[in-house]
């Protein structure tokens, strides 16, 4: 197996990396790029902890070959904040105590961001439906759902 060169942007920065055909985007981000915000949870697309954005679409990085993001724009949880200014979804997670152990949080925030990009003021049912692939085992969903709705409301007010 030979390494292949892939060119893509990570959080706005152009990268050129040598990866093996069986390397997963998740591991390239975590191990080669030291972007450990993206988590390995189940590895089979059940939990959503590894969710990143590829060309704006929420994508499970544990089921994405690194070679297949050639030419794409990848955004991870590390890329949401602008300098010291957190993304409104991140702010809302803090304000609403939507983080306990924090393991599912990066995936949750990426999914919440994607929903608000599509639909700035979702209903609670829409939030729950959109988030059904992101599993949490300690915080509880109520505060997570509330945080996403609050982030939508605040964005509308500002």
């Amino acid at each position: 197996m030979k390494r292949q060169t892939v060119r893509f942007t990570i959080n706005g920065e152009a990268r050129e990396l040598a990866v093996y055909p069986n390397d997963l985007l998740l591991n390239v981000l975590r191990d080669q790029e030291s972007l450990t915000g993206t988590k390995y949870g189940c590895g089979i697309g059940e939990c959503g902890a590894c969710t990143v954005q590829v060309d704006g679409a929420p994508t499970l990085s544990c089921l994405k070959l690194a070679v297949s993001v050639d030419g794409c724009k990848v955004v991870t949880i590390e890329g949401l904040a602008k300098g010291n200014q957190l993304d409104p979804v991140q702010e809302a997670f803090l304000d609403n105590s939507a983080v306990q152990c924090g393991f599912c949080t990066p995936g949750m925030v990426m999914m919440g961001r994607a929903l608000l990009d599509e639909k700035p003021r979702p209903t609670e049912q829409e939030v729950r439906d959109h988030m059904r692939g992101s599993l949490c085992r300690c915080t509880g969903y109520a505060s997570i759902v509330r945080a996403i709705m609050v982030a939508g409301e605040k964005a509308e007010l500002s």
Partner: protein
Amino acid sequence: MYQTTNTRIIVPEFDVRQPTSLEAVLRELEHNAKGTRLLAGGTDLLVQIKLERTQPARLIDITRVPELMGMAVKDGMLIVGAATSIRTLANGVGVRERYTALAESCDAFSTVPVMIMGTIGGNLCNASPAADTAPALFAFDGAVELASCEGSRRTVPLDEFFVGPGRTVMREDEVMVAVRLPKTAAGTGSAFVKIGRVAADISKVSAAVKLVRKDDRVSECRIAVGAVAATPMRAYTAEQYLAGRRIDAKTLADAARAVEEDVKPITDVRSTKEYRTHVAGVAVKDALGAAWQRARGGERQ
């Protein structure tokens, strides 16, 4: 069989090809079809590779092939490229209005990232008896277009496509190009019902119904059920029974009983045979009721 628990990395080695035209995909298949798998969304195939249930020597990534992406209407027929994502299909112009059951089956499809990554062709080619989109495509008399590296093309009606769990009539040297759905008639109503433990789960039972309502009777009807046999299946007995009849409490109950007699479910981790048998009838009943109501709207037009 050895069951690995590692899912963080992919241990087996393989080559990945990334052709950008259908011609190039077929050329790749011509070289060496054996040991080659077509990779679309990867939400199923990469899991199978991680669990070492399949060990391809080569993957052909077909998500950069324009001929396999997107949707078009030709002569009233809806043509959906095989590598079109489930999300794109659900949001396609006119899909929800004309092919309601199909849009509903896409809505019920696993989770949002899987809907975005997963493709219609992948859902069909993996040939799970529980494939969410299959019953709806059966109900609309869908067919799949296959191309082979020898240059031949064939169109296979969906109800002849599946052979068994994970098996289809598609050959190793073929690629699915598109799914074709005929135009729906005036007075058509359709619905999809999925029974699962939670929304993101694989179905225990699924059912899709399409009917044409004329003079307050069912002039034509298709009923298909999933996860209750070795392949998704049509419920022919119930279809024939309902033709020419009105939908009411009695005909619904009779149709449900006919479905219960036709299905051949198994007991597995998700459900028992008995549960699936009964609920298949209930799911069809619910779908028939919804389709009948929706068809009334269509009849007035």
